[in-house]
Structures are given as structure tokens and as C-alpha cells.
């Protein structure tokens, strides 16, 4: 490699390549003739972004010379001649400043000399300006647009990075819900509101459900204003009564399409029903895509790690430098020790630690505990289903026929009779009737994780990580079960057997709900509210109260060893996932739900942040971040799938309500879509008809499978290549070792006047190998000392 030709006007910058040892250090000479050996990487100054790096005079030359610069593993400072290896010496701030000023001066001179025409000068200026502004934009985006960035950093400082996963999931949920909120607001609520107002202006009659019943939810039989007020407030939580008539729920939205009068002809500009339907679909599609994108990113990172999993190094070298609190660092240190000791134990004893008898015993124990868990979950679910269904049959018999005074569990109105009686027991009974569903679900969400943890302790797992994973899986299954049951009950209640289809005309009095979509929407809304209340209650009693006791009453802390509550990441994240599931399920029936979701998420964030900073200690076992992130994303996907199934079943099996919502009058939910398609041009119709046949679907599935297979085999082949390269590296190193050994031996022997033909390799062969080694630059430099 010849020294690069330098035609710069100044001579203060000399670039030379250090040939002797084959390394690529670059010598810069200062004005004071101080030689600074510079790491090649260090001439790439640490700008915020590589975009704005002004091309230094030597860099282009460097690029051609060092085609393996990306592989070169740093350079060695001049001590290399002594045979010692030192770490690449990054420049300090002062040194960087010096050399940067030098380069700038030089570059200016160069540029000034070479720019001939005004146009090229102008264009280059434009280019730099654009580059600069792009860089600025990127900096701003990174710095200012991190939602809740400072709060998360603070929490990170106190509790460590793993706890931050929870808050990052919150941020991500917020993003999804905000996007959906904007979609919903813009495309559904906005036009819906406009149309309702428009119709009320023009006094068109929309056949509304209110006309059908004299349903005045706040119809008070003269019991006074306070009852009405209380009722209204309570109805905010139950989502019934006056709330049913607001934009919150499905029933409010009109069905007509937005039309304009253009040139005397009425032309439909905005198909509202179709829009509603499509936005519902888009909502899911958007969430799905966002999650998949996130998941694929995480998979890539964690897959690379799985290939070479280093249990010890990953614990020893990844001390969390973010921790700024001595107590937290103490806890972290304890967990580090624990995980290290666990690994040691596992290595030394392996699976033969336990005797055969103990193993069998443990196996049976675990089977038993798993059955217990399953039984508990199924039992709860069964009781819950039974109770709700029996109540519904009861209340069917009890329905009255007076307007607005149905004591009916389905309409979820608190019976006014109960309040009038002022009897505590019937009050409670009514309360239970209305809220039973949600209370059971929320209650089981809180109690079951504790139960599972205790069982996990009972099962005597060898490693904490296994135990945590098992508990996580169990909690997740439990949550899925309860939500699925809840949705199933809704389906049953609103569906063909429970809902009104043709009966409404004849049996006006046995109208349970004239708008089953509203019913579903309000039930889900109620679930969200109750869940939120339970969450606040848990926060207050389990965390705040406990930490209050622990800090004030020293007795408990010292003698019993009671501490503040541990922040259990897996349970909390599953809780978030559960909430998101309900949000997803509810959107179709309550378009304003994303707003509620966004508000709730914001409130949860601040409450949790407060609690995390004062009332909670970091968890004892540290979960590796990327693996857990991938798992969490996977769980979210599964829950989305469940919700998807539910919504799909509802849409395709049920008939829309006759008198409420944007689909009133249609036979099926998909009718608006088919109407539009049918009215389209013949060509479009032909295309769409053919696209939706099964043949096309089968072909698509086969294509997808082929693509998956391709990528899988690609990955496998890359693994094989990695192994081969590793082997090659090892061989190279062994060869060099041998050469070094023999050369030294020969040198010592030649000093004592012996022939040089001794040795494993002859002289020519050694030269050959040396040449080969300098070719394979990147790999050859793996050794500490060179020839």
C-alpha cells in the first residue's frame, strides 16, 4: 500500500500509512510537529449525525485505501512495535478540537481553490444547507419528540431499565390509541355530528329509537333532584341512561350519506355507513401493522443474541449505569449476584442435582398444581357464566311494562325502586346485579396473579426465571379466558337467542334493549371504568398504604421484614395488555372509546410514575429487555387476534338493530359495502368478484408460505456460513501462532549460528503465509502482536 498522494496546498497535514505492521494508523502532524496517531474511526468526528461531516481532504483517499475499513478492528498506537497491544486511543475533546480546526481550514482552502463556476458553488451551498436542515430535524426529533422522555429517564434512574419496559409499553399504547382516535374522530364522529346537526336543521325525520319507547332514562317519579343527579353521575360510569344517547355509543350515529347538490343532481360524497365499517377495519389493520413492525425489529435483535448466548458475560458486563440511587444499586447488585450464582449452580450440577425420587415427586406436584390452576380458572369462569345467565332469565320474567322503569339487568339501569326503598340489602343487590360482570372480571385480574405466584413458590422451581415465565404464561391464559368469556356472554346476550330480531313489533313491553350494539358498547365501557377504579384502589391500598406503613412503623420493617411492594413487571404489563384488548373490542360499538382510552392511559402513566418513584421497590430478578419485549409484543398480537375473532363473529352473524346506528335498515353489516360494489362500474365489479373467490385466496396463501420458506432457508444457510467463518478464523489464528513460535525459535537459533531450515515451515512458505495474512487484513489482525 503506497502512501496516498497528497496534493493539498498546505503541508501541515501529512497522511501516511504505517506499513510495517500492516495496521492502518494515520499520522497527523500538528503545527508543533507533534505526531498524533489517529484512529481511523476517530477522524469521523462525533457529530450528531454523519450527514453533516464535511469531507476532509484525506478521507476520500482513506476510503479507497481501506476497503476493509468497516472490518478493521481499530488500530494500534505506536507501541505496537514493542509487541504490546493497546486499545485504540480515542482523542480527547481538546485534541479533537485541534484537529478539527485544522481540517476545516484546510478544507476551506481546498474548496476555495477548486470552485470555478458560480453555479457549482451555489449548488454545493444548497446541498449543504439541505443536509444541515435534515440533520437539525433529526436532532430535534430525537431530542424533543420523546413522549414523556424526562419522566422515563427519572424512573430509569431510580428503578433500573427493566421497569422502564412497562412505561415504554404505555407510551406505545398511547401512540396506537392516539392514531385510532384521530382516525375515529376525523372520519366518524366529525361527519356523524355534522350530519346529525344538518338533519336537525332541515328537520328531516330520522327514525330514532327514542320514538319507539318512551324511554326517558331520567324519568324520576318525583323523588327529587338529588336522585337524578346521583343517577346521572352513576350513569357516567355505567354507560347507560343519558350516555346512551350521546355520541359515545353506536346508536347515535346516523345512517344517511352525506350528499351535495351538484348541478342539480344529488351526489353522494360520503358514505357514512361504509365509512364506519371501513374505519373499524382500518383500526385493526393499523394496530396489527404497528405491532408487527415493532415485533420484527425486536426479533432481529433478539435472534442475533440467541445465536451466541453468553449467560455470564451478559450479567457481568451489563451493569445498569442508569441507576442513580444507592438503594436501587444495592438491590441490583443483589440480583446480579443471585443470577451469577444460579448460573454457576446450573453449570456445576446440571440436571442430575435432584435424585430420581425427588424428580418424580416434583413432577406429580407440578401436574397437581397445574390442574389446580386450571380448575380455579375454569371454575371461576363457569360460576360467572352461570350467574349472569340465570340472572338474565330471572329478569326476563320480572320486566315491568311501565315506561322508563324497567328493573332490568340488561339495561343496566339502577332500579329506581331500589333507591326509593332505601333498603341497604336491596341496594346492594341492585348494585351487584348491575356490576357483577365487571367486578368478577376485574377482581379475578387482581387476585389470580397473587394466587399464581404463591403456587409458583410452592412448585419449587430451580431457577427464578423459569418460575417467572410459568407465572406469566398462567396469568396470560387466565386473562384470555376471562375476557373471552366476557365477550362470549355479550355475544350470547346480544345474539339471536337473546336479542330482538323480529319480536319488537309485537311485544313492545318485553323490549329489553332496542339497540344491542349499544348494550355491548356500554358493557365494555362499564368494564373499562370498573377496571380503572379497581386499578386505583389497588394502587392506593396495596402500594401507597403499604409503603406508608413500612416507612412509619419500624417494627414491621425490621422484625417481619415487610418491604414496599415489588414492581412486578410481568403482571403489570399483562394488565396493560388486558386493557388494550378491551379498548380494541369496544371501538366498533363506541367510537369515542379511543378518547377514553387516551385519557385513561395518561392518567395511569402519572399515577404509576408517582407510585413508582415513592412507593415501590424494583423487582428482585432482572429480566433481559429484548427478550421480554418480543414476548410482550407476541402476547399483544394474540390478544388482538382474540378480539378480531369476536368482532368478526358479531359482524357476520348478527343483524344490525333496526332503529339505531349507522346500519339501521340494513339486513347485514356488510350490506353497505356490497351496495357500493354493486353500484360500481362493471369492470370494478368484475375484478372484485374474481378477487374474492377462494382460488385467489389459496394462491395467496401458497405464495406466503413460499416466501416464509425462502427466508427460513436463507437463515439456515447463513448460520452455516457463520460456523464456517468461525472455523476459518480459528485456523488462521492457529497458523499465525505457529509461525510466530517458529520464527522466534529460528531467530534464537540463528543467533547461535544454526541453520535456518529448522522449523515447521520453510522460509518461502512463511513468506507466503505472511503475504496471505496481510491480504486477509481483517481476520489477520485478530492477534495481539504481529510479525
Amino acid at each position, binding site marked *: 500500500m503506497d502512501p496516498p498522494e497528497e496534493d493539498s496546498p498546505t503541508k501541515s497535514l501529512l497522511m501516511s500509512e504505517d506499513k510495517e505492521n500492516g495496521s492502518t494508523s494515520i499520522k497527523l502532524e500538528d503545527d508543533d510537529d507533534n505526531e498524533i496517531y489517529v484512529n481511523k474511526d476517530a477522524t469521523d468526528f462525533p457529530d450528531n449525525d454523519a450527514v453533516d461531516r464535511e469531507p476532509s481532504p484525506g478521507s476520500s483517499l482513506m476510503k479507497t485505501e481501506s476497503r476493509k475499513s468497516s472490518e478493521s478492528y481499530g488500530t494500534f498506537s505506536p507501541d505496537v512495535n514493542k509487541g504490546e497491544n493497546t486499545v485504540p486511543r480515542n482523542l480527547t475533546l481538546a485534541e479533537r478540537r485541534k484537529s478539527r480546526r485544522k481540517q476545516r481550514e484546510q478544507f476551506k482552502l481546498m474548496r476555495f481553490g477548486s470552485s470555478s463556476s458560480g453555479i457549482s458553488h451555489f449548488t454545493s451551498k444548497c446541498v449543504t444547507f439541505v443536509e444541515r436542515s435534515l440533520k437539525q430535524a433529526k436532532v430535534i426529533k430525537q431530542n424533543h419528540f420523546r413522549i414523556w422522555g424526562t419522566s422515563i429517564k427519572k424512573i430509569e434512574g431510580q428503578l433500573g431499565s427493566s421497569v422502564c419496559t412497562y412505561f415504554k409499553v404505555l407510551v406505545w399504547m398511547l401512540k396506537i390509541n392516539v392514531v385510532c382516535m384521530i382516525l375515529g374522530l376525523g372520519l366518524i364522529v366529525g361527519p356523524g355530528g355534522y350530519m346529525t346537526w344538518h338533519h336537525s336543521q332541515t328537520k328531516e325525520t330520522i327514525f330514532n329509537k327514542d320514538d319507539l319507547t318512551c324511554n326517558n332514562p331520567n324519568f324520576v317519579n318525583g323523588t327529587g333532584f338529588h336522585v337524578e343527579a346521583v343517577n346521572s353521575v352513576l350513569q357516567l360510569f355505567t354507560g347507560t341512561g343519558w350516555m346512551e344517547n350521546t355520541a359515545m355509543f353506536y346508536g347515535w350515529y346516523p345512517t344517511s350519506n352525506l350528499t351535495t347538490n351538484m348541478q342539480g343532481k344529488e351526489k353522494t360524497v360520503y358514505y357514512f355507513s361504509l365509512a364506519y365499517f371501513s374505519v373499524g377495519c382500518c383500526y385493526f389493520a393499523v394496530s396489527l401493522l404497528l405491532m408487527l413492525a415493532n415485533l420484527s425489529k425486536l426479533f432481529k435483535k433478539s435472534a442475533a443474541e440467541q445465536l451466541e448466548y453468553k449467560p*455470564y458475560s451478559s450479567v457481568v458486563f451489563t451493569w445498569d449505569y442508569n441507576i442513580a440511587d444507592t438503594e436501587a444499586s444495592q438491590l441490583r447488585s443483589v440480583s446480579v449476584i443471585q443470577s451469577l450464582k444460579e448460573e454457576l449452580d446450573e453449570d456445576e450440577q446440571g440436571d442430575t442435582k435432584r435424585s430420581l425420587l425427588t424428580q418424580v415427586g416434583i413432577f406429580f406436584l407440578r401436574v397437581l398444581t397445574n390442574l389446580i390452576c386450571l380448575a380455579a380458572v375454569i371454575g371461576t369462569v363457569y360460576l360467572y357464566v352461570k350467574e349472569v345467565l340465570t340472572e338474565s332469565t330471572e329478569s326476563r320474567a320480572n320486566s315491568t311494562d311501565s315506561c322508563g322503569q324497567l328493573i332490568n339487568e340488561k339495561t343496566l339501569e339502577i332500579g329506581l325502586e331500589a333507591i326509593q326503598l332505601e333498603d341497604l340489602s336491596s341496594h346492594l343487590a341492585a348494585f351487584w346485579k348491575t356490576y357483577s360482570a365487571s367486578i368478577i372480571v376485574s377482581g379475578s385480574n387482581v387476585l389470580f396473579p397473587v394466587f399464581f405466584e404463591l403456587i409458583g413458590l410452592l412448585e419449587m422451581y430451580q431457577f427464578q426465571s423459569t418460575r417467572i415465565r410459568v407465572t406469566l404464561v398462567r396469568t396470560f391464559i387466565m386473562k384470555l379466558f376471562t375476557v373471552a368469556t366476557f365477550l362470549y356472554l355479550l355475544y350470547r346476550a346480544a345474539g339471536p337467542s337473546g336479542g330482538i330480531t323480529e319480536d319488537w313489533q309485537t311485544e313492545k313491553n318485553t323490549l329489553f334493549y332496542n339497540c344491542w350494539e349499544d348494550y355491548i358498547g356500554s358493557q365494555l365501557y362499564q368494564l373499562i371504568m370498573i377496571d380503572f377504579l379497581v386499578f386505583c384502589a389497588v394502587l392506593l391500598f396495596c402500594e401507597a398504604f403499604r409503603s406508608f406503613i413500612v416507612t412509619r412503623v419500624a417494627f414491621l420493617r425490621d422484625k417481619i421484614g415487610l418491604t414496599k411492594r415489588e414492581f412486578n413487571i410481568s403482571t403489570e404489563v399483562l394488565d396493560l395488555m388486558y386493557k388494550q384488548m378491551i379498548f380494541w373490542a369496544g371501538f366498533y360499538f363506541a367510537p369515542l372509546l379511543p378518547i377514553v382510552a387516551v385519557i385513561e392511559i395518561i392518567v395511569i402513566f402519572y399515577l404509576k410514575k408517582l407510585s413508582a418513584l415513592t412507593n415501590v421497590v424494583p423487582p428482585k430478578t432482572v429480566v433481559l429487555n429484548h427478550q421480554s419485549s418480543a414476548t410482550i409484543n407476541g402476547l399483544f398480537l394474540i390478544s388482538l387476534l382474540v378480539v378480531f375473532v369476536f368482532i368478526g363473529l358479531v359482524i357476520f352473524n348478527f343483524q344490525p338493530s333496526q332503529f339505531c346506528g349507522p346500519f339501521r335498515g340494513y339486513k347485514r353489516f356488510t350490506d353497505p359495502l356490497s351496495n357500493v360494489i354493486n353500484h360500481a362500474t362493471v369492470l370494478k365489479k368484475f375484478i372484485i368478484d374474481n378477487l374474492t373467490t377462494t382460488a385467489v385466496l389459496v394462491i395467496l396463501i401458497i405464495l406466503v408460505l413460499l416466501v416464509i420458506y425462502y427466508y427460513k432457508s436463507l437463515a439456515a444457510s447463513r448460520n452455516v456460513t457463520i460456523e464456517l467463518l468461525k472455523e476459518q478464523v480459528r485456523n488462521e489464528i492457529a497458523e499465525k501462532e505457529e509461525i510466530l513460535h517458529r520464527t522466534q525459535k529460528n531467530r534464537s537459533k540463528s543467533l547461535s549460528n544454526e541453520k535456518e531450515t529448522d522449523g515447521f515451515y520453510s522460509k518461502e512458505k512463511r513468506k507466503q503465509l505472511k503475504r496471505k495474512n496481510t491480504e486477509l487484513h481483517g481476520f489477520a489482525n485478530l492477534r495481539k502482536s504481529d510479525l
Partner: protein
Amino acid sequence: MGQGTSAYDQSELAEFQDLTYFTKREVLHVHKRFAELAPEKVKQHGRNPTLTKEEILLLPELAANPFKERILEVFSDAGDGNMNFEQFLDMMSQLSSKAPLETKIDFAFKIYDFNEDGQICENDLQKVILFLVQPAVTGATLTSDERNQVIKNQKSCRVSNKKEETVLTEKEISAIVRNSLITDDQIKKLAQKVINEMDMDDDGSISYLDFKHGMSKLNGFEESFKVTL
């Protein structure tokens, strides 16, 4: 804006912004935190006061870190932990979240290389584990003098690899064993295991390249190796 900002004008701030990974606002913030550590010195010198190691260690983000002395030693010019503002700024910039992975790996290697011979050998690793264990050891923490002594106890890797010496002094061992969180024997084994994992060229210690290769595959490294003020 405090007194510290009068020390630097806009062009200098712009230069700092170019030379580090910080924006001007962050540079000022760092200066503010720096000034809080020793207000009188900053008032006197203003431009580039040199703070001693003890003063810098008052910073809570550093104080909770078991490797605090090493961090300061690596980033200070003189190698003894005293640094002026520029070096402090440099340190914070390299430790911030915007520094690229390579830089972090470089500095991590230097921090963990206690005897500064370009290799992380068993000695160094045992010391690393010792310091990792330190915060958990209640009631028998090493004093700062003892910590310095452990750090300075520099035996070059080549020497001790051949002979099996105990690198921890009696006092250090007793401090840990007394609380029986981890035994001396376990520390040795752990050090050996880490070397087995990371050492690619089979020379018994982790060279810079081994370390770099290993850490770039380790996902948790980038996230954990940062300090934000």
C-alpha cells in the same frame, strides 16, 4: 441562567455542540451540574476549573455506580480522576445515549481493564466481580481508600496468568466472605467462566477485539451503559 454560562459564549457553545454529542442546551445543563459540585472553584476559575475526584464523586448518578473511580480515571487526562470541565463534558457526552455503540464499547473496555495493559485478564475480572458485589454487601463495605487500593493493585495479566495467585488481598476477601453473599472461590470460577465465553483467540484473557465482538452481540449492553444527567 447562572454564573457558569457567562464563561462560555455562543461560538464556544457551538463548538462544544459539534465536538460532543450534546446540544447547546445540554452543554449548559452539564455545566450547571458541574458547577454545583464545587461552586467556589467554578466561581474562581470560571472557564475550565479542575475538580478533584472526591468532588466529582458527589454526583449522585456516579455515586451509585460501583465503577465510579474507574470511570473517572479513564476519562481524566492525568489518570488520577481529577478532571476539568472539558473532560467532564467529554465523559458525559461519551456516556450519553447518543454516543454510538463503538465508543461505548471502547470506554467500557478501558473501564474494565483495571491494570491498563490492554487486556481484561482474570485479575481484572475478579476485580470487576468484586466491585459488582460491593453495593450488596451491607455492613462491611470497603472504604474508599481500600477501593483505591484494589484498583491500584496492578498486576499485569501475563504474570498472574501463569501462576495462580490470589489477587484479592486478605481484607477484601474477608469483607465479602463475612457477609457470605459470594465466596472467593466462586469469584474465581466466575472470572474463569467469563473468559471462556468471551475469549476468541484462546490466549486466556479478553482482548479488545474479543470484547468488542462480544458486546456488539449483547443487546442489553447499549441500553445499560449510559449515564444521563
